């Protein structure tokens, strides 16, 4: 059976690996990751996606560092500021789900560029608001752009082979998230520059917002002009050639929402990424109020948290791929649980540290583990579903934002808890909400506590998402190719038993079977 399907795949699959600059697998996904290359289409897609996502983060968190000016200009109260902070992350909850579906249906290139261009007016209009309501609305609509996270992960999962997908997702996600830190340095700098040229403060901050807006618009256009959905081309071209079957929304939806693993990962992502967003919103004020450091110092400490993403999240992805080499999917799951739990422990410690120096050290350790957990999460997500990859990524991403909304609402909205107590309890919540990872089990590879179901193969798992009728029509072929390339997730034991097929350039693998 395997022989037959791989040879029929050969016949249907257009083009050959020689057209690609990078080594690819039978799905034409890159098996290597060359960070400093712009090789078309894989690394080019990588750079386009992380940079456009970075711009969205810069815009979404452009307001917090300028709050001291904005709150006086608009006469905001602390409640207004808190509400806007919650609004900034809540828009993306549903936008991420919608984005997942859009990627499944029209491809990440069109989906992400459309969303970015639709949200840039909100960034430009941030410069013309005059009330607390206006502030809340622009932060809400700008925050929708954070849904480009899903298209980034989807695009990387479409371009990179399983052994490298954790790394690609981790670097793209991490370098994008870094925008939340970079903006805390960029916006004050731009603002000061404009004031120096001769503007009054209340005009200067408004002009400053054109910078993130303009960069965001340019990045969207770059994605449209230079980007490509899949190694073999764009969705509309592949649909026309009959190579990519244009899927049916209700089926994609069904296979996403009935997969419990997607829901568990959505919950746990809320307690690494959601916590990261919450910290982006509150940490500058925390250091300013509790330790009496000035605004620029507080901004620098806040920036360091977000900027740690340059290594911590990719490190998480890399670690996930490394664990998979020896222990397969079970290693990825254990790694995720351990790292995220450690993040929770450091969060608890942060809430109870009383010195400035100590708090900075604990904050950095916390950021490393919290962000690495984000990278590890998306080392697992690409394997949960192939047919509904977009929607599962969207659920995970949306869950992250739900975590941010909930955490800010419970602990950081009113004066019930002091900020340090809020951080302490948030840490406890991380520890509790990370436990469900123990329940995730892939029948073909196992889970944290149990091994794989005997006789169950990756092909069985991914094929089960397509009905018999659909399989007869051959709609499931890309899922089968994915299954073939993901066999390594069985870890060393899978390789030893002879089922292992190392993901090498297409000329050699099919004949091994």
């Amino acid at each position: 059976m395997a022989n037959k399907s791989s040879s029929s795949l050969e016949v249907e699959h257009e083009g050959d690996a020689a057209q690609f600059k990078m080594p690819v697998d039978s799905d034409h996904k890159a098996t290597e990751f060359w960070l400093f290359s712009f090789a078309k289409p894989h690394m080019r897609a990588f750079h386009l996606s992380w940079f456009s996502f970075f711009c969205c983060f810069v815009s979404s968190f452009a307001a917090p560092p300028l709050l001291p000016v904005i709150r006086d200009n608009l006469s905001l109260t602390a409640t207004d500021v808190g509400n806007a902070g919650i609004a900034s992350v809540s828009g993306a909850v549903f936008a991420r789900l919608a984005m997942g579906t859009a990627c499944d249906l029209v491809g990440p290139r069109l989906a992400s560029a459309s969303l970015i261009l639709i949200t840039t007016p909100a960034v430009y209009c941030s410069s013309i608001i005059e009330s607390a309501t206006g502030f809340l609305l622009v932060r809400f609509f700008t925050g929708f752009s954070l849904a480009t996270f899903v298209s980034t992960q989807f695009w990387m999962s479409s371009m990179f082979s399983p052994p490298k997908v954790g790394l690609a997702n981790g670097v793209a996600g991490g370098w994008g998230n870094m925008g939340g830190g970079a903006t805390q340095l960029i916006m004050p700098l731009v603002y000061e520059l404009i004031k120096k040229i001769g503007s009054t403060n209340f005009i200067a901050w408004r002009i400053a917002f054109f910078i993130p807006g303009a960069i965001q618009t340019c990045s969207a256009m770059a994605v449209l002009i230079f980007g490509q959905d899949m190694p073999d081309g764009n969705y509309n071209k592949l649909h026309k050639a009959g190579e990519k079957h244009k899927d049916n929304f209700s089926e994609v939806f069904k296979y996403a929402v009935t997969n419990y693993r997607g829901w568990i990962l959505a919950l746990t992502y809320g307690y690494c990424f959601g916590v990261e967003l919450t910290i982006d919103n509150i940490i500058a004020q925390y250091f300013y109020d509790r330790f009496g450091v000035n605004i620029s110092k507080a901004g620098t400490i806040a920036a360091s948290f977000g900027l740690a993403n340059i290594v911590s999240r990719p490190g998480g992805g890399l670690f996930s791929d490394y664990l998979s080499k020896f222990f397969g999917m079970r290693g990825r799951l254990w790694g995720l649980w351990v790292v995220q739990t450690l993040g929770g422990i450091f969060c608890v410690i942060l809430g109870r540290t009383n010195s400035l120096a100590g708090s900075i050290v604990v904050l950095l350790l916390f950021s490393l583990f919290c962000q690495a957990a984000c990278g590890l999460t998306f080392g697992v997500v690409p394997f949960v579903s192939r047919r509904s990859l977009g929607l599962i990524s969207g659920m995970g991403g949306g869950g992250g934002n739900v975590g941010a909304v909930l955490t800010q609402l419970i602990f950081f909205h009113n004066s019930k808890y002091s900020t340090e107590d809020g951080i302490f309890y948030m840490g406890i919540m991380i520890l509790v909400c990370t436990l469900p990872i123990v329940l995730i089990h892939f029948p073909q590879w196992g889970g944290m506590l149990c091994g794989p179901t005997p006789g169950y193969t990756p092909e069985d798992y991914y094929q089960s998402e397509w009905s018999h009728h659909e399989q007869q029509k051959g709609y499931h072929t890309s899922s089968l190719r994915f299954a073939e390339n993901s066999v390594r997730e069985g870890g060393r034991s899978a390789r030893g038993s002879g089922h292992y097929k190392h993901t090498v350039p297409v000329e050699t693998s099919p004949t091994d079977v």
Partner: protein
Amino acid sequence: MAGLRLSKITIALLLLIVCHVGPSMAALFNQLPKTLIVTATTKSGDVLHAGEDKFTVTWALNTSLPSGADANYKTVKVLLCYAPISQHDRKWRKSNNDLKKDKTCQFTVVKQDYSATGKHEYTVARDIPTASYFVRAYALDASGTQVAFGQTTDANKKTNIFDVVGITGRTTGVFVSAIVFSALSGVALAFFYVVENKKKK
């Protein structure tokens, strides 16, 4: 032996006192004498526009005080201070008895050498936010620490409160640019969709 220990203890105690007294040298508002009489030409409920309207503030030492009461006054600093209604739900404008941490008065009207009477005409600066205010003057000693004060309002900060309407900052240039750039984003999106659809056919 005992003498040595006693002198050690004395030194320790002295150090303790000095160190304790030192920081508390920072002025506490409730301990400042109200020796200055401060008046402004603004009346209760007046509305002033930032960058345009002016008012004159006058300060004078209370003449019923014994002479020499102002011996250590070296500088006078007059400030624009938030009224309680504008401090509500805004931690960054909170009043604190420790004047080093106090955030009530954030804008300087004038700072000059001390004289028993003084007067200054002030044009409301363009960076003053929309809020309700009163005026307060501090007398500072040679080290810059507050030693006395006076204000245009009563102890509860309820009387003689006036309003300032700040500039919006939303100039015509900013407004037009925002609309134009937003429209351009929409046009770019539409353009690319048309191109994509053409490619499909």
